[in-house]
């Protein structure tokens, strides 16, 4: 696949805003704390009266990405922007609240996985191709690969890959079901802005987890689908022209993305010709 360039990254995490807040060793930095949370973004607009924390964090991540790019929302509005969303468990809190009847019927649509990208799409007017993948880091890595395919086919001019994970409302359940999760759990919301670039991107997903995939979690904790966004944000400061390799594992599967050239340092390519049917 023709590799995408990364134009901007928006990242919020339990460590603080951006990649600069991330420690060298999560376990040491967390000092025994099992969970690092993100506060609910403060919004007052009537439209958000029923919005859940995970949705507002998704919007905040897209906002942070726009800030990083130095452009306004109009730059991503419209049908030439694709939105791909990945999460392993962002829906768990709203599902639980609905099951335990802490919220009423009008909140039911917010229990859907699609609620998070829907709120972002509405807020920023994104009406292009739209896909949602469920899983941990492997889902986000696949979302980047799908975004690349959409860019390559000319279905969009830019693609946003959004990932959100929250844990606080279900912290007891994550503790019960902990199997395979690293410590600490770190809430996150991140968004990548991808555009046609240069070089190649390869992707594969397979059964089995190579030993080296644990490095990212050791550095910044368990972020599930947000892990690749965090890893890409951290890779931005690397001076090498490329290649850049990302790995992630989830429930016995691993996935790998490899850019032949550093996606932050490539010139953005001309838009592919848009195919039209008369």
């Amino acid at each position, binding site marked *: 696949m023709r590799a995408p360039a990364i134009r901007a990254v928006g990242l919020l995490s339990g460590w603080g805003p951006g990649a600069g807040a991330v420690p060298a060793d999560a376990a040491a930095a967390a000092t025994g704390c099992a969970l690092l949370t993100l506060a609910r973004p403060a919004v007052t607009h009537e439209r958000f009266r029923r919005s859940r924390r995970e949705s507002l964090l998704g919007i905040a991540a897209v906002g942070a990405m726009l800030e990083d790019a130095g452009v306004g929302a109009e730059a991503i509005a419209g049908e030439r922007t694709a939105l791909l969303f990945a999460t392993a468990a962002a829906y768990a809190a709203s599902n639980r609240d*609905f099951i335990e009847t802490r919220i009423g019927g009008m909140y039911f649509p917010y229990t859907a996985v*699609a609620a998070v990208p829907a709120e972002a*799409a*509405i807020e920023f007017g994104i*009406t292009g191709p739209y896909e949602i*993948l469920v899983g941990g880091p492997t889902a986000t890595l696949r979302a980047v690969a799908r975004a690349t395919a959409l860019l390559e086919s000319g279905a969009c001019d830019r693609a946003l890959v959004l990932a959100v994970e929250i844990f606080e409302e279900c912290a007891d359940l994550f503790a019960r*079901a902990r199997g395979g999760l690293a410590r600490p759990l770190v809430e996150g919301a991140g968004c990548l802005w991808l555009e046609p670039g240069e070089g190649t991107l390869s992707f594969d997903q397979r059964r089995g987890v190579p030993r080296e995939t644990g490095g990212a979690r050791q550095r910044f904790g368990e972020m599930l689908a947000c892990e690749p966004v965090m890893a890409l944000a951290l890779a931005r400061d690397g001076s090498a022209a490329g290649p850049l390799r990302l790995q992630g594992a989830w429930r016995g599967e691993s996935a790998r993305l490899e850019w032949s050239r550093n996606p932050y340092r490539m010139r953005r390519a001309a838009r592919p010709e848009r195919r039209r049917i008369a």
Partner: protein
Amino acid sequence: MSAKSERISIVSAGAVTPIGQDLDSFWSGLLDGADGISGVERFPVADLRVGRGGEIKKLTRAVDWRRVPDCRATRLLVSAADDLCEQSGQRALDVEPARLAVVVGTALGGVEEGERALRGGSARRLRGALYDAPARRLARWLGARGPAVTVSTACASGATALAIGAGMLRRGEADAVVAGGYDILCRFVMRGFDGLRSLTRERVRPFDRRRSGLLLGEAAGLVLLRREREAGARRLGTLLGYGSASDATHIAAPDLEGRGIERAVRGALTDAGVGPEAIDFVSAHGTATPLNDSAEAAALRRVLGPRGGAVPVNSIKGALGHTMGAAAALEAIVCLLAGRYGLVPATLGLEERDPACDLDCVQGSPRATRPRVSLSTSLGFGGCNAALVIESA
């Protein structure tokens, strides 16, 4: 050969639905006007306004259930996969396990496992509540060791799954993909739609002047995808194109003008390399809610242009209820079977056409016509829209 020019065949299909637990009985049920709607018995509904739906009373396929976790979502998927294996014949699924992938769509995943876990179930059940758990269990049952992927574009999920599966084949990630969708009828979703007042107390009447809402159903629909050059002679058809789009208007309701589904359809036609004049049949989303059907009809009229009133359209939701994550996969299968058998099933429940849904909805009895190229449209919560263009063999 470029990635895009690699044609993807739909080799076979499997289905478990309220009107039949294999492909043949599903199809004959649609042609015979079977009604899969009944009173829900599996969980309490007495406190709900509406307690009916497309419930499968008993899973009847001869599967060794001791090998399958006690999770209804997984069992629906395994039932459909068992049918798929039977329909495919031994050789079609005879691929190296590492080259067999699974891509399924769902709106609810293992949420019922979450309900059970919160009542004191085990940690294992809790892990089963994650929405991607049933797909992994299906992969295990199939012996597939390639990627196991879950998508959740709400009620358009099945279409997204087929498209992602096709992409995996084109990129050489797998040699065969079992793709489709599923969802179960459970208290979580019944209470949700009941609370939104989306469920009708009357009959489900897609595109009818008197339509008053939907009823939910449970089902699973799967297809086997392979690259055309490896598919063999026996196949149901070809997945020509896919498009998706976001409405960006409302968290639950569709765009009233159907602009999102229009973009998805135009994207699918472009991806397929065909124009609207090629479409012989539309397997519509047709939920029978006042908003969905008029928005979808308006979009189809705009896309199909002057032929909009002459292309046969049907909805299967009058027979099954809205099967959510399974709906798009089943509706794609209807496209294939309509082409194979030269019949378009009637839209059960449609009696008085709504002038606001000015389409050629097949009504009363099946129509003898053999669509070659069909369009399947899907809309879902969160402004999810997807469309597939399918060519029958």
